[in-house]
């Protein structure tokens, strides 16, 4: 059974269906059902996935399908998943039904500060199309196909921000699009150059691994890919589109934007930048790690200074993406696996934060922190879930984000001591930005306009509940995810020709002494 | 030798005519000048062993195309003369520079080229036995596809012209009843006074006189009055001069591109109004409502 193609086809067909049905309500229900079907299919696929096969080169990508697409240029429709891709696909398909449920009224124009009513059906159809593309981009094993999905993802997101967003939506949408296109076009050049220089006559990723040997060529191609991914991720200083886009997008779209779309950037770094250009990756590692560490600290500090909740969350994500990039480029198993897990966990944790903030904004009609205060008193469940989501944002142990952040820092400490120490101060700053926001919105005397805000209703609890369950479950028992990720990361690192730091006393002595 | 003389004569004529075409103020003169150029060129074709083309040039160009031009000129207003004041800054200067420079460059190119004596077409037409059979042979063999396409083009062009020039009637044709009603609801049920009534001369440029001997303002021919004014001729009769002056002032206030309307028949005014309404509908989508409105106002005034 062509699992991955089915996974992509179902939401596309669903999207067509959603746009054809008569009533808005039916469209929403259909969209939800379709996304749940995809979720179930993915779950079945995940159970049939065998992580142990990831070690061998031939069976690295499972559920592989390869068909010629443009034979003249060696372009294939090639899909397949390894552990890394699988967990990210799982992240996407878990988030989509949740987002659909959370966005139930987002396009209705019923919120306290809702933009003018737009086509409801289109919104849900776009969500489903986006889901198909997210699956495709993670599953693509053909570099060109990856590029196509990478760019095509922009289209539904552009419309979701531009049509259904906040007051400044067109500015944010255009900024988002231009930034991404800028990176994407650089990548297109690099993709074509890779094809030409490799002289393999194919765009299939497994056959391109290790082909480019010339160091200078590697460096240029690396930069082409890396800048695209750094814009996407976003890494400092390519980040300024994210706060605008995330703040203006409707909450559901913001979740998918920050939770999944941006992961394509860090996923691309791990998969393409590292494996296709190992020498260049090593050469540029100091630069990338510097950017990542700056991003961690800078994102956190700027987040502290925000007055708008959604922008604040967006900036925390910039900080988190710094951690992910740090983990990817530390090139140790722990850091790599941690970074991959971080991508998943961050999707859940930031997703929960955005959605709950969205509920809050839907009620009160403002995203300004100053407009709130004492929400805990009137809506304890909302405040409680917000706190849990926030705590997962500051990587509290026992919540999933801690595992990944710990692994990233532990793994990078093995190789880069000083940058990791600087990065770890982000842990303190995280406490400041999350708790300060929580204090200003949820604690203290109840603000006049907040009085009488309803607590989460059943639908909203069904949105938040699964996320929190996932966050806590993965926080105490991350092994299932890590078992899938670890072999894949090891495989990646073996293609980079870099060995883990041996944590034996003899080696570690010098590092410890360097403190 | 004969060719040289012919060439030089016709070259001078055609260049002068071309200049005339460009510089004459009235479109009709330009059209006539173009005709001169075309005829000259036809002769030059003939001189250059292209009798068929010379014939076609005269028949198609000078005959058909030029007639078409003149027709359209008549439609658009034969007496309208261009203002020669340039509105785009620097246009004329740069046009002259570019045009002359272009000509100079081409001339330079031609002049710098070493050109062998012409081969002549004697050999080319020998086989088929003449210019026209030779051309026919080529057109219907090597160029037959282009020829067929050209025919398709002509048909398309004919259809296109019809579509473009055709105007759908959007309201029923004005019946005699409509016309009568329009006339009697207007300010002037009776016909306007014809020229020359009670006058000494019964001529078109003579205004009618009222019983008291004064001039009937409505009987003055505006076109003639304008032409006279343009030619600097003022009516000798001071009272007529005053009326003409006033008429011209009114005319200048009205939109300039209004078609002068000599016949003051009210029924005609109604039909014109009809047309103007249709035009309005055509323009509804454009932002030219102002112009259209002005046109309509002008016509309504006329109707009164």
């Amino acid at each position, binding site marked *: 059974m062509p699992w991955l193609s089915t996974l992509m086809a179902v939401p596309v067909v669903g999207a067509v269906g959603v746009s054809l049905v008569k009533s808005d309500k039916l469209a929403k229900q259909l969209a939800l059902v379709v996304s749940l079907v995809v979720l179930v299919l993915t779950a079945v696929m995940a159970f049939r996935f065998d992580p142990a096969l990831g070690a061998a080169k031939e069976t690295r990508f499972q559920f592989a399908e390869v068909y010629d697409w443009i034979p003249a240029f060696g372009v294939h429709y090639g899909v397949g998943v390894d552990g890394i891709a699988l967990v990210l696909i799982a992240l996407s398909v878990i988030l989509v039904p949740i987002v659909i449920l959370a966005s139930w009224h987002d396009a209705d124009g019923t919120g306290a500060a809702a933009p003018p009513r737009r086509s409801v059906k289109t919104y849900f159809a776009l969500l489903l199309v986006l889901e198909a593309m997210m699956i495709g981009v993670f599953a693509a094993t053909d570099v060109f196909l990856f590029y196509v999905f990478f760019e095509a993802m922009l289209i539904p997101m552009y419309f979701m921000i531009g049509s259904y967003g906040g007051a400044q939506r067109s500015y944010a949408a255009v900024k988002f699009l231009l930034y991404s296109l800028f990176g994407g076009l650089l990548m297109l050049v690099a993709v074509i150059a890779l094809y030409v220089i490799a002289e393999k006559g194919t765009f299939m990723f497994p056959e391109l691994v290790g082909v480019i040997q010339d160091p200078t060529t590697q460096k240029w191609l690396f930069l082409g890919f890396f800048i695209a991914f750094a814009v996407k991720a976003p890494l400092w200083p390519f980040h300024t589109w994210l706060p605008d886009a995330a703040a203006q997008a409707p909450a559901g779209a913001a979740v998918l934007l920050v939770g999944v779309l941006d992961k394509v950037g860090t996923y691309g770094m791990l998969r393409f930048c590292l494996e296709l250009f190992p020498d260049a990756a090593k050469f540029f590692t100091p630069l990338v790690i510097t950017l990542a560490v700056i991003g961690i600290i800078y994102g956190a500090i700027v987040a502290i200074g925000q007055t708008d909740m959604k922008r604040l969350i967006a900036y925390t994500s910039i900080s988190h993406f710094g951690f992910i990039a740090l983990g990817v480029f530390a090139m140790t198993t722990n850091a790599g696996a941690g970074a991959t897990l971080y991508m998943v966990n961050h999707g859940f944790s930031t997703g929960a934060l955005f959605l709950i903030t969205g509920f809050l904004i839907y009620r009160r009609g403002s995203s300004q922190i100053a407009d709130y205060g004492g929400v805990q008193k009137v809506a304890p469940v909302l405040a409680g879930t917000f706190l849990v989501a926030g705590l997962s944002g500051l990587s509290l142990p026992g919540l999933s984000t801690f595992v990944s952040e710990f692994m990233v820092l532990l793994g990078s400490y093995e190789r880069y001591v000083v940058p990791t120490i600087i990065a770890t101060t982000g842990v303190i700053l995280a406490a400041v930005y999350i708790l300060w926001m929580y204090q200003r919105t949820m604690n203290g005397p109840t603000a006049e306009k907040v009085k009488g805000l309803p607590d989460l209703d059943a639908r909203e609890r069904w949105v938040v509940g699964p996320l929190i369950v996932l966050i806590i479950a993965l926080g105490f028992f991350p092994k299932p995810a890590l078992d899938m990720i670890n072999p894949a990361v090891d495989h990646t690192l073996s293609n980079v020709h870099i060995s883990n730091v041996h944590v034996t006393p003899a080696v570690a002595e010098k590092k410890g002494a360097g403190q | 030798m004969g060719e040289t003389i012919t060439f030089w004569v016709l070259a001078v004529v055609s260049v002068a005519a*071309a200049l005339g075409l460009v510089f004459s103020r009235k479109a009709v003169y330009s*059209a006539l000048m173009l005709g001169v150029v075309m005829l000259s060129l036809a002769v030059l074709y003939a001189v250059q062993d*292209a009798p068929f083309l010379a014939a076609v040039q005269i028949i198609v160009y000078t005959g058909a195309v030029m007639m078409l031009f003149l027709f359209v000129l008549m439609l658009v207003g034969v007496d309208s003369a*261009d203002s020669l004041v340039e509105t785009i800054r620097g246009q004329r200067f740069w046009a002259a520079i570019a045009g002359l420079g272009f000509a100079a460059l081409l001339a330079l190119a031609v002049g710098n080229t070493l050109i062998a004596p012409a081969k002549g077409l004697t050999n080319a037409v020998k086989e088929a036995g003449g210019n026209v059979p030779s051309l026919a042979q080529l057109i219907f063999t090597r160029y037959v596809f282009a*020829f067929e396409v050209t025919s398709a*083009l002509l048909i398309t062009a004919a259809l296109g012209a019809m579509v473009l020039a055709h105007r759908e009637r959007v309201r029923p044709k004005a019946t005699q009843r409509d016309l009568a009603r329009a006339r009697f609801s207007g300010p002037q049920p009776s016909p306007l006074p014809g020229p020359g009534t009670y006058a000494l001369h019964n001529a078109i440029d003579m205004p009618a006189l009222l019983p008291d001997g004064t001039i009937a303002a409505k009987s003055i021919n505006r076109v003639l009055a304008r032409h006279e004014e343009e030619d600097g001729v003022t009516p000798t009769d001071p009272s007529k001069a005053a009326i003409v002056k006033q008429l011209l002032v009114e005319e200048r206030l009205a939109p300039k591109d209004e078609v002068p309307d000599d016949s003051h028949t009210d029924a005609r005014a109604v039909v014109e109004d009809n047309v103007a309404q249709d035009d309005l509908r055509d323009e509804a989508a454009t932002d030219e409502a102002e112009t259209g409105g002005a046109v309509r106002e002008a016509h309504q005034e006329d109707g009164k």
Partner: protein
Amino acid sequence: MTTHYLVLSALLFAIGAIGVLTRRNAIVVFMCVELMLNACNLAFVTFARQHGNLDGQIIAFFVMVVAAAEVVIGLAIIVMIFRTRRSASVDDANLLKY
């Protein structure tokens, strides 16, 4: 002799071009375009004789046909524009801008 014809052709072409650039009456502009086409035809005919084959004349012939079609359509457009705008000035048709 060929040179003379070609120079005459270039001169007529340039005059036509200047006319196109300076005249505002659409009909006159059209005439200038025709003049330019005729100048080209002259060059074609001249070259036909120069090279000793009839292809140049054939092309000139086709140019005439196309010019005829063009005039038909062009004039129809001018009439239509005049009908709605009461003007045949090419400068008045300047809505399609920045």
